[in-house]
């Protein structure tokens, strides 16, 4: 018998090396500076598609035709300030309840605006005209606000049936209440001051969720770090002293914030009382609110940049205990830190539990944690097929959605380096291609980026990412934001015979929040069972559509749809015909079929 020690050195070395590669690699390479020239990309794959083929996801960049002219401001500074690396997000919101998702784009600006520098760029809201085009309504609805904007979260915090908007900034959070404009339309009113929302720090991603079960949405806000422009550190690389963006540990981290909704339009900062502030301060970038252990209470998972992630386990009564480290979802496979950016949560292994996906730095893989139940997670990155394709990318926004409607969640990722001189400093490209992975079931994915349309082959400096079926054709579309560039609206033109259902959940607005964030939905068809979660937050600085778009595969209808509402009430709806939009109201026995009407031409 051949013993392990009798083999040649090649193989013994290979074992160690391959074990490292296989197990997820080496945290130290994140933010590790190399002197190598930028790597060339692998040769073009013969699988690259230039036209759609049946069953293969296909996205077309329709930004120009849509009329969305938003361009993110590039706040580049000679010092490569870390603030300029973060980018800004975007959010889908049906602000006028006409059934057509509108797009809100967050804007930043110059770090030190000149006093007489002219008008500063502002956030923008684009109203969906229902015909594939959008109209800029920013001024009309009162959202023209300049500042160093970061992210947004969409939620109906006062349960009045209209979605409101939280927007994060470097040094602040702004809350907009969606109100009638007096002319049959809607407008947003800045209610930050009277709401009591106050966060003086660098707020990034935020997410809504009813953490205390009182029927009103509360708001979690990630904070990144304290950056003092007057004492900004100078980071240089190599003998040529090339300036580059300082890594996050150069700046003190600050605690994140949890704001409890009192139900009267005001909020209390309960960060300390709820146990959020007890966690070691860390640079937070992504947050998702979902019930991770199936106890009926919404938990909070936060991706932190080169610090352990947070898993705030909801104890009830608005109290949380941070448990990520020993739940196995705080670090990489070797226990190394993850440069956590965006997050997603969804059932990718047909377990009925939400697993967690976190995007990561260049040269280390994105991370998939499979939810094994009882608040225990297993590192699944390489087993999933998501590891190797992400090694040469720096991931930011990410969404789970079923792009080919086969009944399995797929995954999209926005990529782009943090440093505009990444080639010199990190040996990596600044602009990078976004990626699309098809869910195969059992926690496995297949990279179809080369086949999914031209956008996925164009290097961009990707940041935010949110999905929505903006044209109500039953296929999820994608919107990407780019640092210092225009957004990209991708229309899903996948040719498929698969069925689908749109499920709009409406909580009772008393024990459940009206948005039904925190609901668990089980869909049973002749083709099988799938479980979907209505999460708060997710992705990176961005907000996706809240209506669930469920692929049915070969099935034509759902035999049963069982909703566990945030209140704990369980309700089953029967025989929901596919290809339709169903509104499911808590405590109402019958679902309502919704027919989207073309929106009025103007308001």
């Amino acid at each position: 018998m051949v013993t392990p020690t009798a083999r040649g050195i090649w193989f013994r070395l290979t074992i160690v090396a391959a074990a490292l590669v296989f197990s997820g690699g080496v945290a130290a390479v994140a933010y590790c500076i190399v002197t190598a020239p930028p790597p060339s990309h692998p040769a073009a794959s013969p699988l690259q598609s230039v036209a759609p083929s049946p069953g293969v996801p296909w996205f077309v960049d329709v930004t120009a035709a849509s009329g969305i002219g938003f361009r993110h401001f590039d706040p580049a500074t000679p010092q490569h300030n870390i603030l300029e690396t973060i980018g800004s997000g975007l959010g889908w919101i049906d602000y006028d309840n006409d059934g057509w998702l509108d797009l809100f784009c967050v804007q930043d600006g110059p770090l030190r605006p000149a006093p007489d520098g002219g008008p500063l760029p502002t956030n923008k809201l684009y109203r969906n005209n229902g015909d594939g085009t959008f109209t800029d309504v920013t001024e009309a609805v009162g959202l023209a606000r300049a500042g160093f904007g970061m992210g947004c979260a969409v939620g109906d915090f006062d349960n009045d049936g209209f979605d409101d908007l939280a927007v994060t900034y470097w040094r602040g959070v702004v809350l907009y209440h969606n109100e009638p404009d007096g002319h049959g339309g809607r407008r947003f009113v800045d209610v930050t001051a009277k709401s009591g929302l106050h966060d003086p720090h660098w707020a990034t991603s935020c997410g809504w969720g009813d953490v205390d079960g009182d029927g009103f949405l509360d708001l979690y806000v990630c904070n990144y770090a304290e950056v003092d422009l007057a004492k900004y550190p100078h980071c240089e690389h190599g003998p040529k002293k090339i300036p580059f963006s300082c890594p996050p540990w150069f700046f003190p981290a600050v605690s994140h914030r949890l704001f409890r909704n009192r139900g009267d339009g005001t909020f209390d900062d309960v960060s300390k009382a709820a146990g959020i502030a007890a966690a070691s301060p860390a640079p937070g970038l992504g947050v998702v609110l979902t019930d991770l252990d199936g106890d009926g209470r919404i938990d909070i998972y936060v991706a932190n940049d080169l610090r352990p992630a947070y898993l705030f386990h909801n104890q009830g009564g608005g109290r949380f205990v941070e448990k990520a480290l020993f739940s196995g979802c705080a670090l990489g496979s070797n226990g190394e830190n993850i440069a956590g950016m965006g997050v997603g949560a969804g059932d990718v292994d047909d377990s009925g539990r939400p697993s967690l996906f976190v995007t990561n730095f260049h040269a280390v893989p994105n991370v998939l944690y499979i939810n094994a139940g009882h608040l225990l997670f297993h590192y699944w990155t390489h087993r999933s097929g998501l590891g190797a394709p992400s090694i040469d990318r720096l991931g930011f926004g990410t969404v789970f959605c079923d792009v080919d409607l086969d009944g399995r969640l797929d995954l999209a990722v926005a990529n782009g380096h943090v440093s505009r001189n990444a080639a010199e400093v990190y040996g990596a490209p600044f602009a990078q291609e976004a990626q699309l992975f098809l869910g195969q079931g059992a926690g496995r994915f297949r990279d179809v980026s080369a086949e999914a349309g031209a956008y996925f082959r164009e290097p961009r400096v990707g940041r935010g990412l949110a999905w929505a079926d903006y044209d109500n054709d039953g296929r999820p579309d994608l919107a990407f934001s780019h640092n210092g560039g225009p957004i990209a609206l991708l229309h899903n033109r996948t040719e498929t015979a698969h069925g689908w259902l749109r499920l709009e959940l409406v909580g009772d607005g008393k024990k459940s929040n009206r948005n039904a964030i925190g609901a668990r939905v089980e869909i049973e068809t002749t083709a099988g069972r799938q479980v979907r979660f209505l999460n708060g937050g997710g992705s990176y600085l961005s907000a996706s559509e809240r209506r669930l778009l469920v692929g049915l595969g070969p099935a034509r209808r759902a035999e049963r749809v069982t909703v566990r509402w945030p209140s704990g009430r369980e309700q089953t709806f029967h025989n929901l015909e596919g290809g339709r939009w169903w509104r499911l109201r808590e405590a109402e026995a019958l679902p309502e079929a919704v027919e989207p009407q073309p929106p009025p031409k103007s308001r």
Partner: protein
Amino acid sequence: MRRAGQEAVRLAQQGRFIDAEPKLRVALEHDPNNIELLRALALGLLDTEKLDEADRVLTHWCAVRPEDAEPYRLRMDLRHNSAQRAKPGAERQRLQELALADGQRVLELASNDDSTAQKVVWLCLGIGRFDEADQVCRRYRERQPDDPWLDYLQARVCHARGANAEALGLLDRLLASAPQFAPGLLLCAILHYEAGNADQAIPLLRRVIAEGGASHKEARYHLSLALARAGHTEEARRVMAEVQRDNFERDTARPGETESLAVRVRRAELLFSSGRADEALASLQAVLAEDPGYAAAHRLLATYYDEHGQSAKAAEHRRRAGPDGGKE
């Protein structure tokens, strides 16, 4: 082959590649597809670590003799070794893919090449081609059913494909013959942990840690998880604190550079969590000596004094942290 070429090959075979190389090149100008010359030059270039040139010569050899396994085998090893030296990223991946393609070609040409089969399985694992790894590994285990290495490879493949019970069976057999084989112990421990048997994982992980070596770091992390799951909370925290401290030192290492105050505050925080409060307090005092208003240091001190029942001191530091310090 001309006499000069024969002389060049002879010199190379005697280990005198410095003398042989120019002669080999001259001879190849006259006889560019001569396999003996190409082999001698390629091996010499590999020995002298002229790897780019070696790759070019091997590629030419492959083109001249596409039915010969040897140049593909040599090029696979060369590219795989280059991949290991490359930083993780696109270039490493590209080299691994190229090495794998060579390995697959070798197996087409020499299906009894067990050594190359093992390398192909490893490369497939690294790239994430688990089904292919499974096929190759099973085929070669049929030929060598008692090879513990192939058991280990198959166990990794099974783990990657979710066949954990089969993986455990293979590892049991492997560890019976090689009880100190750290990668096998580690994988076995992870499988036990994932199956909910943390108690069984703990002794295996302790053995890996005692062995030291490349698996040590990963084993320590998994030990902290297993200890926590088995209810040994205090030891789990201590081990996890070590993991975090190592992460921090590795992530922030910048030889020759002055550490930022934020780094020093974070180190103090990790020292607190490791029970080394005296060192942490000294470090924070040094930070405040440099910048008496440094809010992060005051906030950390406020937390520390709060936890130790010294509310007056805590309040003072919170006040000095600034107007928002009290809310942290």
